[in-house]
């Protein structure tokens, strides 16, 4: 056995995420890349609830959780304090939130942080619903997914609106760095964490992280689904510097796009979809891929 892993785990084992949770994989990689000279805020959500149950904590870096909607504002305060007090600014300041805490309830705090140009990297762990409270619809929830507040039923096909294009909206704030990433591609993810932290000002990282409980897939499918999302074009990996969202850089491009069906069929949240629905989704993915030059 090696004397010590090269890099220390900064999210300790013993956290209470579900078996196979994509957030666990994501967080381990992200924190390793950020390193110990970091301070984090976290919004309420699975990540927070599963890692901070008193009197234990899974965090090896300083962490503050205040509420659900304000990770980015709390981070703004930390950044200002550090700048004011030590004026060096070598410490990474990370703001974590789920899709709910980023797309919806935390969006204003985030937009404000961007606009004020704090040197904070906000990382959204997107599992496409409010998971901590039991799989409710979020504006990140994709068209056709059944959630507990957008259930499929006699009068409903599940969520009936497209996913909010959050990273594009973030980029439109003219921030130095905005990117999407996912846990299937750890190197790409880490590289982007690194770029985000190095950026001179606010950065946004949209990290796609499947959730076996909410998406109703096997706990061993997590990475596979993250990969399929990219391979089918459901989730496009890109980055944009200085708000150049009309000229993004695609960072992972499969030779051939797989049909979305391969992605959908592995998840019971999409089990109710008919062939027509799937075709509709395929069409929309095709269009988006065209828009993104994918």
């Amino acid at each position: 056995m090696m004397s010590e892993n090269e890099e220390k785990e900064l999210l300790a084992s013993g956290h209470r995420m579900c078996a196979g949770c994509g957030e666990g994989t994501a967080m381990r990689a992200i924190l390793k890349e950020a390193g110990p000279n970091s301070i984090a805020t976290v919004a309420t959500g699975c990540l927070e609830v599963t890692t901070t149950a008193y009197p234990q904590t899974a965090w090896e870096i300083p962490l503050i959780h205040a509420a659900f909607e304000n990770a980015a504002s709390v981070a703004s305060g930390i950044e200002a304090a550090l700048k004011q007090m030590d004026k060096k600014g070598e410490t990474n300041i990370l703001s974590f939130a789920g899709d709910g805490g980023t797309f919806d309830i935390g969006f204003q705090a985030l937009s404000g942080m961007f606009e004020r140009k704090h040197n904070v990297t906000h990382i959204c762990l997107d599992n496409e619903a409010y998971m901590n409270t039991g799989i409710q619809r979020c504006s990140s929830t994709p068209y056709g997914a059944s959630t507990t507040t957008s259930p499929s039923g006699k009068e409903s096909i599940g969520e009936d609106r497209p996913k909010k294009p959050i990273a594009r909206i973030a980029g439109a704030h003219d921030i130095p760095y905005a990117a999407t990433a996912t846990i299937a591609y750890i190197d790409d993810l880490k590289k982007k964490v690194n770029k985000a932290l190095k950026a001179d000002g606010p950065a946004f990282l949209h990290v796609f992280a499947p959730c076996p409980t909410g998406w109703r897939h096997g706990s061993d499918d997590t990475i596979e689904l993250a990969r399929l999302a990219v391979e089918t074009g459901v989730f496009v990996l890109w980055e944009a510097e200085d708000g150049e969202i009309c000229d993004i850089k695609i960072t992972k491009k499969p030779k051939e796009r797989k049909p979305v069906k391969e992605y959908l069929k592995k998840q019971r949240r999409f089990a109710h979809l008919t062939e027509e629905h799937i075709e509709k989704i395929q069409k929309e993915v095709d269009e988006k891929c065209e828009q993104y030059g994918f």
Partner: protein
Amino acid sequence: MGEQKGLTIQGNMATALGAKLSRPDVIPAYPITPSTLFPEKISEYIADGELDASMIRVESEHSAMSACIGASASGARACTASASQGIALMHEMLFIAAGMRLPIVMAVGNRALSAPINIWADHQDSISSRDSGWLQFYAEKNQEGLDLMILAFRIAEDERVLLPAMVGIDGFVLTHTVEGVKAPAQEDVDDFLPPYEPPHGKLDPEEPMTFGSLGTPEYYQELKYDQTQAMENTPEIIDEIFDEFEERFGREYNRITPYKCEDADIILLTMGSMSGTARAAVDEMREEGEKVGLAKLTVFRPFPGDLLKEIAGDADGLAVVDRNISPGFGGAVFAESAGTFINENRSPLMKNFIVGLGGREIFKRNFKEMYEKTKEAVEAGEVKKPVEWINMDEDVMR
């Protein structure tokens, strides 16, 4: 001791100056009438190089308090200013700041809450956050606003306390009103208020710790009790620090200040700027031979029941004057005064007067009316109508 400089300034400038003298590190703030001059003054101090601090021009009050929390947890001295809808919007974060034991100080320009929207003096905004675990101070005049800011930092940061604090000055009546004040010298304030070094912990990669954990039912009640205890222990500490302030700066503060109460049959219990007018009314009534006194609340949280008992325990009537209303009950000061006396063998009869909502004036004659009504109740030996609204314009009632 440096000389104290005489100035004529508005209430907001007084609290801003109090803040400046306290050398805050981070001031996240959002404008709202009638407290806006506070962040404006701070901005000016910084722009002119008179204050070395970071002002965060947040996008909402919710973020103002959130940024205060982040800054304070990082070991910075954080303060902000707000009022009315702003305080309501940060309601959630007030409890969190207190639960995390972060000694943030907020200057409040007390104002009514919507609907209807109204920008004038009223205590509803801070009163309705009385459960949040913040210390609450209310000023009668600008001098008090200035001094209480400095005192608030000192008390809040005391390691036996570690609780956030609000300093309320009434909207317009103080915030926008120029009065003469004496400003302590910077070096004396520095001496009184040393730099903030959090004794309980801070966000620092050198010694990583987690703030804001999930407090399971096994621990939550004890954590809450521990926090509440800090508040319970505060009266003595406040008294001690008030005394020290008086020694250093020559101005006396009390959690409740009695005025002509010793032999009073009836005492008016007031808070904020109205106390001045009430004092004038008491003087006039005294000249007419009425045995009336005034008890002015400076500290509302923790509620100074101990002092209230001392001051009003022998009176026949206590007229509790509330510039706030909890519909379906009455005023907050009344409720807690009643809670103070409910188990006493001897208790004054209590009338509750709702006054001055949304900037409604409170005249000397209104205090006389309250006195008369309380006297009537005392004479009748019973209180028929415990809660009465004063200075109503009957003509406009529908």
